[in-house]
């Protein structure tokens, strides 16, 4: 594994993430497999500081729903994508609610910055604060 690419300013919460099945109430870091039900964590979001979500394959897409569900439920801690991920997926990841990525191959921060600036507008609401074009059109 390469280094974690983080988009948060707060200090990294380094507690080891425990698998969902072993998670005890009060635990601050948990690990979700791709197929785990993120909604099971909703009662514990106040205690949690970091949620790691596994991407065992590039094709794996369930984690995007998991992250979005957690943000929709009000989670403000770190959601970290871990696994087979590339810089070109950063926009999807960040808009779905991830704010840290631990990829198998390292992400060049310069390329990442460029990638995240690539699309000036988006068409749909997601978990970030970016206004979709229909809101911009409405305002104009």
């Amino acid at each position: 594994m390469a280094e974690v690419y983080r988009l948060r300013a707060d200090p990294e919460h380094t507690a080891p993430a425990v698998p969902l099945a072993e998670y005890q109430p009060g635990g601050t870091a948990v690990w979700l497999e791709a197929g785990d039900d993120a909604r099971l964590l909703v009662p514990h979001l106040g205690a949690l500081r970091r949620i790691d979500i596994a991407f065992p394959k590039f094709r794996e897409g369930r984690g995007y729903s998991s992250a979005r569900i957690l943000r929709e439920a009000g989670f403000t801690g770190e959601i970290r994508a871990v696994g087979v991920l590339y810089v070109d997926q950063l926009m999807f990841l960040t808009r779905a609610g991830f704010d840290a990525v631990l990829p198998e191959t390292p992400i060049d921060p310069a390329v990442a910055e460029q990638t995240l600036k690539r699309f000036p507008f988006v068409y749909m609401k997601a978990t970030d604060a970016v206004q979709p074009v229909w809101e911009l059109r409405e305002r104009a």
Partner: protein
Amino acid sequence: MYRYDEYDQAVVDARVAEFRDQVERRLKNEISEEAFKPLRLMNGLYLQLHAYMLRVAIPYGTVDSRQMRMLAHIARRYDRGYGHFTTRQNIQYNWMKLEEMPDLLADLASVEMHAFQTSGNCIRNISSDQFAAAAADEIADPRPYAELLRQWSTLHPEFSFLPRKFKIAVTGSTIDRAAIKLHDIGLELVQNEAGEIGLKVLVGGGMGRTPMLGHVIREYLPVADYLSYMEAILRVYNRHGRRDNIYKARIKILVNDLGPAEFARQVEEEWALVKPLGLDPPPSELARIAAHFAPPVLDANAPVEIDLSNPDFANWVAVNTHPHKAPGYTIVTISLKAPGEIPGDASADQMDIIADLAQRYAGDEIRVTHAQNLVLPHVRRADLFDLWQVLVSAGLATANLDRASDIISCPGLDYCTLANARSIPIAQKLAVKLAPQEADLGELKIKVSGCINGCGHHHAGHIGILGVDRKGEENYQLLLGGSGAEDATLAKILGPGFDENGIVTAVEKVIDRYKTLRADPAERFLDTYRRVGAEPFKEAVYG
């Protein structure tokens, strides 16, 4: 027609810049082919048997003359002078060079076109009724709803890595020309008792290896909420669709495993959670889009009666035109199925001619049909003869719409890496054989696929042909009784398969038997088959 505003253009321009950067990184070997593959696929670029193939999106199958001329330019500049219109109302180019792709995408972007999501496990091009806004039988133009879906699904952060590809079709008519029962989601515009337009929602249809018809999960969905409802469907699918087996990953398998009622319950439960999040744009956004689709100004005094004394012309009018909403107008289908030619292919010169005709006679609009033909939607009947003469000189006046030689065919083993057998030569042979008697046969839809993935829609064919590999030899199965229309059914295999010549003979035997069985000359093959069943045909072919 929808026109991009500054936002739409900026997104498409950014995509070109992104892909230019990705191609550069690939050509410099900074990224491996393995890592590059999903990136190029998201831009519709496949690696085929002989070269790269690019699939360009034609949202809901609508282009104007300027865009058609660009498609012709691309065929000349980047391909070998041809383009291939597909069963998803898109166009494919078969001889692409990777290093030229960024310039090609920039050319497309200059006329408000792109190749977004024409491949990959994401929401694909939204398809629709090719007669939208022209057909006498529709309640409303489905394309504004399709355009809003296009925008909503473009680079969707949650639904770009689905278990499998995802296809949505929208129609505004009870006469189904968009095959909505054979899509992952099919949407039909309907009216409630108050006369308000809403959407009937079907889920879980599809062809391919496990063909299924979609199920209605909601009879009436208010328009104001339809995007959040789509979010709910897609989220249930993204979370629970199978990812362990590529052949069981489409939503139809999930709907079938859960049962439509349980699937619908899960969607409603999810919808209750996402609806309050404000994901639906205000009605003004749909109204803004709909304003782009205002119908062309039509001549209220356009004459209805026209001179049909030329028998070839009269025949073409009878076969290739449909009733238009406005008297004095008609809908013209330009067949890309001249017998012996490749179904769906058009040369760059033909595309330019069609662009000219659209501009001159058809409100500057052209539609691509899922049967791989082109449509001029708003033509004055009084202009038909002039238009037809131009088509004749361009080799585009084949009068065979929905007849035996109007065959849908996938590219098959001539191009496609997935194919097990050639399909184009089968379609060509059948078309040449059947064309002389097709007027007598009436409506007969023949569809040919070169592998079980079914891009040639063989399961929806009145007569379907499926090419398979049998011990290293091309083998063709014969299916009968399918329909992709409002009376949708799935075709069934008749019996053991045939070689290339055998399948042509078998189809001829089926047709000969039909001629002796039909109740009257007007009874379609499909209706005869439904009435008498498979047995007489089995006997004719294998007996």
